[in-house]
């Protein structure tokens, strides 16, 4: 008799009162509203253009760009197309974003840990860092790094000579660099393969160590494997793969080697320092969220502070840290568009130039939006995958 079911629980409510159906309907309506708004806005813009006698279209991407770009790691001249110019911008944005994310994570993690340090001085430094950086606008900081730091280095003629030879001036850091020769492509294939092989060797040795309990030097083996493959590549390549050129002051500028431009450096430092402060807070919060008992237990087991951080606290804090970290990575990527104001040719800077020279505002903005959207989605996907992975590792 206790099992007599209440009829209410079984009878489905009419669909207009079914929460699940309602939710779907609400979403469909929302979707329609969004699409209608987008179409409306688009047509509005299009009509505006038509009034000025302009027709939207993406054909301009195939035309000659006609302007030069200072800092690019892919080849580009003014004879290339607008499409190629976009690509240069995208590559530059991705370059800053990837390096920036890595460095900001390192800086932020260190600062986050220091925020909780028992050492008063270290804690003070970390606190001052976080508070000043988080509470001033990024644009101001970028201007600071560029005009008050980078541009204040000595002029080229008085460049500071460092070993290498490298030279530091307000035109950037001139360093020796490789110059590809005939055999470069083949050798580079080996170079990449070396990493894969080294990784495999590492896994194999590590598994053996895990199984047998005997130390089998996974890291050293991997390194040796890597070196062997790279050297093998040198022999397989038809001719020498590259030479190294050194920077030398010739005429107005350094020749040879390569230059890390001050605009890039200022942007990178600015973004890393800024984002690092937010990451520090996330890391601090993550660590603090780990149960106090865990730390006490680790200490009771005789683990040192570093050991308990490394093996006990951080792995657990990760779970809490990763989701907010993702949004910091996205922020860094999007904030890199401020490059425009300090002369670094990122996607946004290049696109404004293109927009201005072609007058294709709508098209250019749509491309820029699509690019940032794609990078953001990819970052999110990657971080979600990583989050999942970290979670599985939890026992």
């Amino acid at each position: 008799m206790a099992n007599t079911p209440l009829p209410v629980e079984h009878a489905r409510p009419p669909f207009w009162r079914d929460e699940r159906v309602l939710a779907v309907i609400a979403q469909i309506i929302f979707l329609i509203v969004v699409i209608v708004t987008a179409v409306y806005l688009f047509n509005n813009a299009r009509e505006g253009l038509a009034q000025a006698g302009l027709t939207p279209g993406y054909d301009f991407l195939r035309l000659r760009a006609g302007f030069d770009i200072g800092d690019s790691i892919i080849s580009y001249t003014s004879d290339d197309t607008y499409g190629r110019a976009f690509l240069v911008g995208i590559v530059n944005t991705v370059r800053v974003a990837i390096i920036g994310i890595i460095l900001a994570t390192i800086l932020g993690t260190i600062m986050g840990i220091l925020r909780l340090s028992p050492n008063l001085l270290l804690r003070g430094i970390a606190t001052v860092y976080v508070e000043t950086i988080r509470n001033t606008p990024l644009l101001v900081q970028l201007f600071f790094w560029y005009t008050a730091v980078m541009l204040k280095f000595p002029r080229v003629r008085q460049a500071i000579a460092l070993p290498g030879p490298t030279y530091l001036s307000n035109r950037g850091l001139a360093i020796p660099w490789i110059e590809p020769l005939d055999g470069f492509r083949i050798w580079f294939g080996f170079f990449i393969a070396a990493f894969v092989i080294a990784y495999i060797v590492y896994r194999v040795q590590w598994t053996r160590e895990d199984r047998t309990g005997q130390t089998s030097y996974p890291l050293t083996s991997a390194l040796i494997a890597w070196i062997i493959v790279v050297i093998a590549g040198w022999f397989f390549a038809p001719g020498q793969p590259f030479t190294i050129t050194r920077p030398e002051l010739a005429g107005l500028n350094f020749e040879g080697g390569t230059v890390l431009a001050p605009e890039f450096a200022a942007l990178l430092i600015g973004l890393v320092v800024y984002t690092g402060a937010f990451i520090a807070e996330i890391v601090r919060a993550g660590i603090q969220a780990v149960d106090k008992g865990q730390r006490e237990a680790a200490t009771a087991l005789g683990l040192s502070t570093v050991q308990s951080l490394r093996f006990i606290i951080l792995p657990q804090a990760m779970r809490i840290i990763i989701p907010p970290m993702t949004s910091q990575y996205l922020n860094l990527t999007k904030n890199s568009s401020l490059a425009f104001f300090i002369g670094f040719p990122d996607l946004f800077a290049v696109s404004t130039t293109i927009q201005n020279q072609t007058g294709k505002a709508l098209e250019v903005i749509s491309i820029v939006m699509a690019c940032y959207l794609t990078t953001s989605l990819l970052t999110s996907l990657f971080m979600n995958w990583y989050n999942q992975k970290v979670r599985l590792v939890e026992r």
Partner: protein
Amino acid sequence: MNRRLLLLVTLLAALALVLAACGGGGEEGSAPTETAAETGGAAETAAPTPVPEQKEEAQQQTGQSLLETVKARGKLICGVNQALPGFGYLDQSGNFAGFDVDFCKAVAAAIFDDPNAVEYRPLTAQERFTALQTGEVDVLFRNTTWTLGRDTSVGLDFGVVTFYDGQGIMVRKADNITSMEDLNGAAICVQTGTTTELNLADQMRARGLDYEPVVFEDADSTFNAYEEGRCDAVTTDKSGLVSRRTVLQNPDDHVILDVTLSKEPLGPAVLQGDPIWHDVVMWVVFATIQGEEFGITSQNIDDFMNSEDPNIRRFLGLEGDLGTSLGLTNDFAYRVVKHVGNYGEIYDRNLGPDTPFNLPRGLNDLWTNGGLLYSPPFR
């Protein structure tokens, strides 16, 4: 579920936007662009030239010319420079002043009989066309070069030149640079969104010279980086160089090379497709030029009011209906010269011998003095 759907919606919206725009281009764009790509030279898109019907249609859609909007608003919104002493800048008392700014005043004087009925919008090189396209400003008096591409693909209308200029290049005296060839391997500061950056690329390419462009968004950053030694040279319109040199720390340490990289006819720009408004802007500029040719200045203009010369009488609106046919009052030229002065007065006030710039008139003299200034007849 919720999150995913939201994502989908965003993606779809973006896709819709992109696709719709693609579709629009496919219809007409392809043929003319191909020719442009073949000839290789033109950097700008060869958009189909708008046929006159299109213009009229556009006007009928909006119903009225910008002139009516401006009149109803009671003031002119003028896009100007704020970083170019002599042309468009903020003076000590915080008011906009300069050669270009005076032409804004001239237009306001013609419409409202009040040279101060102007609201100024400072714009960087890169912002200016969008501001015009979106209707944020009525007219652009901002050292803007008239080019075919801007006249067509960017969707502007030019038609009269207020300042004949050419692109120059400024270097430090101490560097002993005298020709373009000396600039091989140099770092050159330049501002984005200008004809300047395109001309520089063309010139260096034509001469087979290598250089590192350092591109900034506004004039202050560009010239600051140059002054700090980030660049060996800085390039823009010669007028711009002369103007900006006066605000460098030691103007005498810098020289403007004796080379001209391009033709830079600077003039007002309005949005394409509004012939009435375009005419107003053009003829106000012509009024200043014609005024100088007649020898009429803001000082002596009232003496001309009893002139017997029919040409002068028509110009001042004492006869005929030239002004009203423009949509203005018959005495619009009188208002312009009375309130702002003729071309020579505007020039001398801002750029003449009594200013730090002391720019010779050169090409910007009347045709009767060997210059290029030539107003079509007021009849």
